[in-house]
């Protein structure tokens, strides 16, 4: 555990009306982690991601990324600093092709989006092809993203997030809607990204076999509060976690 802290969240709070979606959450990640946040529907997982990426502003608390306080930063600045996210419900550019979807993220990462006079098709060719191959989308490059099957949409979602060359990536249910085979492939890819290029990854997931098979550290959220945290074994043994969540599964 000698790796440095990449993300540090202190006493984060967010309420929507009377509902406390995030209640005094403190959280920390070190470089190179592959961790998961679990919790029943409505536990506040997506809200937590939304707060960390600037989509919602927290009511109180602080978020530090690479030692910088990013608490009130807008999403585009946070992304530039190195956090990317893939959404639960695929959030693509439906009228652009798969290739153009990925290229857009890469062009943004390369700071070429203010270029007005070089045709985009000449830029970022190699990087885009590579990323499409890694994510298993090289057969679908010319398909309109809106017409892709669900599993491919989720893969494209991941490819766009990776196009930003992030240091930390949030994956909100990366395998939702995928077949067993696809789920396995996707999670193997996630694992490889973590091990080979040292990408720090935090994901949420409903499928417990995925969570316990891949995450090395788990955090259990319930009604906006962290109720358990630790290795998969520790969480499995934790009574609170069993009661609110794992109990339903067993």
């Amino acid at each position, binding site marked *: 555990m000698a790796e440095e802290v990449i993300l540090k969240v202190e006493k984060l709070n967010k309420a929507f009306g009377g509902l406390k979606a995030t209640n005094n959450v403190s959280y920390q990640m070190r470089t190179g982690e592959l961790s998961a946040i679990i919790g029943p529907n409505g536990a506040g997982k997506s809200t937590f991601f939304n707060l960390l990426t600037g989509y919602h502003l927290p009511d109180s608390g602080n978020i530090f990324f690479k030692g910088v306080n990013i608490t009130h930063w807008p999403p585009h600045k946070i992304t530039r600093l190195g956090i990317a996210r893939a959404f639960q419900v695929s959030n693509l550019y439906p009228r652009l092709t798969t290739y153009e979807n990925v290229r857009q993220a890469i062009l943004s990462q390369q700071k070429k989006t203010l270029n007005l006079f070089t045709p985009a098709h000449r830029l970022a060719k190699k990087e885009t092809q590579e990323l499409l191959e890694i994510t298993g989308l090289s057969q679908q490059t010319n398909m309109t993203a809106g017409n892709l099957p669900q599993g491919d949409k989720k893969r494209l979602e991941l490819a766009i997030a990776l196009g*930003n060359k992030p240091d930390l990536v949030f994956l909100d249910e990366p395998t939702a809607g995928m077949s067993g085979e696809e789920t396995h492939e996707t999670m193997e890819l996630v694992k490889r990204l973590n091990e080979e290029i040292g990408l720090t990854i935090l994901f949420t997931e409903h499928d417990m076999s995925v969570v316990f098979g891949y995450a090395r550290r788990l955090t259990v959220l319930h009604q906006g509060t962290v109720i358990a945290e630790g290795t998969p074994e520790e969480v499995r043994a934790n009574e609170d976690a069993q009661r609110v969540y794992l109990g339903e599964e067993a």
Partner: protein
Amino acid sequence: MKRYLFLGLIYALALVLPLFIGEFWIHVAVEILILGLFAVSFNMIFGYMGQLSFGHAAYYGVGAYVTGMLMVKASVPLAICLPLSMIGAGICALIIGYFCVRLTGIYFAILTMAFGQLIYYIIFKWYSFTRGDDGLQGIIAPPLLFSVNAYYYFTLFIATAALIVMWYISESPFGYTMRAIRDNADRTRFIGINVRKYMLINFVIAGMFAGLAGALWGPFNRSIAPDLTNWHHSGTPVFMTVIGGPFGFFGPMIGSVIYTFLMAFVTGFTEYWPLIIGLVIIFVVLFVPGGVLGFYESKMKVFRSKVPKSEETIP
């Protein structure tokens, strides 16, 4: 390749056009070019950025007034007036756009329209400076461009140059960022793009080219009036784009050909022009929602690709 050949043919036709048609139709052709340029600039906001500007005539009108006033009051050569018109319209678009890009959808449309009306009333009421609704008369093109044929070639040259620049922008990373914002502005924020800033830049560029189109209008028509900036004139590029198709670069230009030609033709024998264009718009919206270009492209797709047919496209 085929596409370039087709464009080349159209262009060759445009070059020899004055040999075959009379002076009246040359006038119509100039109008097609100017309004087509105006409509293509409008479509940078509508088709590429996905927002409806209902005050685009403001920048067209400002461009027309910058050139008109400089030529009438200070005898500035036309060649210098054109870039100044672009700058003038661009500054207006920068100030107005700064507020408008904070909104999207219907609110964006209403605010652009409100600001457009503001420009209209300023020009209308500021008699001592703009001569109000008397308009400006005697905007005379330089002797070289005095004949209608010469002005036609001049307009063709300027419009072509402007279209090439806009084409490059639409194919550039910036152009694709606009498509990205149109398709999914939220996602675009999460790939690190300051959406408002990009929308504002696009708004200004579109305003500048509208200003250029307006600048060409004055010396052609020899006079200008505040009506050029009024909201019903903002409707013209909307109609053209809807007819021609917003999802292709040349759609609005095709729309301009149809709209302007039809107007010249119909007003020749009846005053009920708005009725005719109304029927055309209803027909297009109901039966060819992608406009002429969209219709052509969807037909072509059926023949040549195996890509599954797209679900309803959402504008």
